[in-house]
């Protein structure tokens, strides 16, 4: 079963309720009755299993085998029965390593498969997955789904999965439930029942449909003035402790009016390249310089040497986790911060902030604390702050991560608009539909290239 719904419709909350993991200590209100496998969920807890979105924070132990054993230990399974069960669970997810593999050397996809093995070892009847592939690259996500498909064929499991992107999950599910914004169930039925003829209603609730992906926004046939702004020459990046660089002697020119996508599997150096282009990191070798168009009078200057207040007027950078960027306690101050730092007069800074808030639907949360916003609002705010100083180039790291269809659509038209108004846009992303919808140029990074 696939559970759909807009951001904030309570999908994840419902999953934790089903898993019997809520208690009254946390505050908030809950009404109504829930029966899982004919019992209250706190009682059925031992027969349900939950996998969360973030693979990194659900691994407990330093070795893969110990991590799978963790749940069995908690269950009080005798020691001599633990290891056969661990081996069985690792085999079920197609584990490519031995049980002593250190868990901090796993990719995101491998961590998610390990998490899956950890709950399969407990032999659950009900499998609850909360956006299990959201942080995986396309290949890692496909492998996880294939693993699940095989497990479902072998075991009599009930699967409930929450995901935004539906197309890839359709082969695995027989029933789709759509949660309405503000409570209640919008639709419930087979994939055909749910998707045929309801496109408009689903779109209104911010819900993805299988064929929605990759619709290209209208873009001018002839791009506006194309000028190079950032020039990278002979860039090489090698993570500490790695025995070879993730990319070597890379040349790249970023131009205005163009959207450049950086793609590649986890660990291929997308984020590192984005940070190098954004002047946040000092390259180990090679150089990233600005053109005359980017920094009048400073053509050829090395970007990472710029003071922060110069950088912010020229390049806007959006991090994957918006919370890392927030610096003030109020949305209004957050928006005005960049212009203030750049020396813009106060009335003008406030004016720009309110224009941006208007444009990105943040007017309603003008006085709110950024940390208390919803996921979509945080994303819009982090993009708005990057635009506040009207930079020539905007660089984004996974701008659509975990966003529902409405925010996704807004992001697509916003980025298209930025390029069309003469900015350079660079995005590092796993999101194939986003690349298909927007990229004028795609740079594929892979191990060792």
């Amino acid at each position: 079963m696939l559970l759909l719904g807009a951001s904030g419709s309570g999908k994840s909350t419902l999953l934790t309720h089903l898993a019997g993991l809520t208690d009254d200590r946390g505050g908030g209100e809950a009404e109504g009755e829930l029966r899982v496998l004919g019992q209250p969920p706190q009682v059925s807890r031992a027969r349900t299993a939950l996998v969360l979105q973030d693979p990194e924070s659900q691994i407990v132990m330093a070795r893969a085998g110990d991590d799978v054993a963790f749940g069995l230990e908690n269950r009080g399974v005798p020691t001599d029965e633990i290891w056969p069960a661990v081996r069985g669970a690792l085999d079920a997810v197609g584990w490519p390593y031995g049980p002593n593999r250190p868990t901090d050397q796993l990719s995101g996809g491998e961590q998610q498969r390990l998490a899956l093995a950890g709950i399969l070892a407990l032999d659950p009847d009900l499998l609850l997955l909360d956006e299990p592939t959201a942080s995986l690259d396309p290949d890692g996500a496909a492998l996880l789904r294939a693993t699940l498909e095989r497990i479902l064929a072998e075991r009599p499991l009930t699967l409930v999965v929450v995901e935004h992107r539906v197309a890839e999950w359709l082969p695995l599910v027989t029933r789709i439930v759509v949660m309405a914004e503000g409570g209640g169930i919008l639709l419930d039925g087979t994939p055909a029942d749910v998707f045929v003829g309801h496109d408009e209603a689903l779109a209104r609730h911010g819900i993805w449909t299988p064929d929605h992906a990759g619709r290209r926004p209208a873009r001018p046939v002839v791009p506006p003035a194309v000028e190079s702004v950032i020039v990278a020459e002979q860039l090489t990046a090698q993570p500490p402790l790695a025995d070879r660089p993730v990319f070597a002697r890379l040349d790249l020119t970023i131009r205005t009016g163009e959207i450049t996508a950086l793609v590649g599997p986890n660990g291929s150096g997308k984020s590192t390249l984005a940070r190098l282009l954004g002047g946040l990191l000092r390259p180990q070798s090679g150089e990233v310089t600005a053109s005359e168009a980017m920094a009048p009078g400073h053509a050829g200057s090395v970007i990472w040497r710029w003071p922060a207040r110069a950088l912010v007027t020229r390049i806007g950078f959006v991090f994957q986790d918006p919370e890392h960027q927030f610096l003030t306690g109020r949305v209004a101050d957050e928006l005005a911060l960049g212009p203030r730092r750049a020396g813009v007069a106060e009335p003008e800074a406030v004016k720009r902030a309110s224009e941006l808030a208007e444009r990105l639907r943040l007017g309603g949360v003008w006085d709110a604390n950024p940390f208390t916003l919803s996921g979509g609002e945080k994303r819009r705010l982090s993009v708005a702050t990057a635009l506040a100083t009207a930079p020539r180039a905007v660089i984004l790291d996974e701008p659509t991560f975990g966003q529902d269809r409405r925010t996704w659509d807004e992001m697509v038209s916003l980025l298209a608009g930025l390029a069309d108004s003469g900015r350079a846009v660079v995005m590092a992303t796993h999101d194939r539909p986003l690349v298909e919808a927007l990229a004028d140029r795609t740079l594929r990074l892979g191990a060792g290239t």
Partner: protein
Amino acid sequence: MQLRRPALANPTAFLPAADAIIKLGAATAVMAVAFLSRDAVTPAILLAGEGIGLALTGLRARDLVRLLAPLVVVAAVIGLTNSLLVAAPAGGLEARALVGLALALRILAIAIAGVLALATTDPADLSAGLIGHLRVSPRLAVGALASLRLVPILGTEWQTIGLARRARGVDAGRNPLVAVRLWLSAVLTLLVATIRRSTRLALAMDARGFDSGVPRTLARPPRLRRSDWLLLGAAIGFALGAVAISVALGTWVFLFG
């Protein structure tokens, strides 16, 4: 800032294979003697014994040097400073030098005993030992183990937060006051990130039945072998032997004597 767990020693070597709690006990015995003896002879004998211990760690010479070099420097600096500052002892320069030497050797003996026990121990084994031998509550021991795993992740996160500040146009330039203020606000952001991450980790641990009231078992229960008892006996015997030799030589000075 990059925080990484140091590569574990070869797990089949003698010390890494020994029981975690036994190693802690053995190290404690040596540390106690080094702490309580104020002369230079006792810690010198202890250090000679610890040399044997170092050979049993299975660590490569290069890693050993990297591990121990900072300790030697710190001990030498503290010893030297103390020999200069010590309140005019009877006997002049030579006595001063001896006071510093004794202190440096004691610090080194204590530190190396700690390194021998901890650098050869997988945190998971330590946690299992605490639960298995010392009946420490699993909630505490496993909880601590799980949070230890988050440390390198937080290191990466701290780095990202620093970069994000630069991207927002905020840096301290040369103003130390601004630097302190920025550092504090970055710590706050890291705190929020840490709380969110630990909440998720706690949820994931709950989802796998952690601390649900069922008596917990251990996948790799610590088993004491004869070699473990030998190790403990050897360490205690050696520590007391060092005192005995020093007393016989007439050099031993008790810390509170």
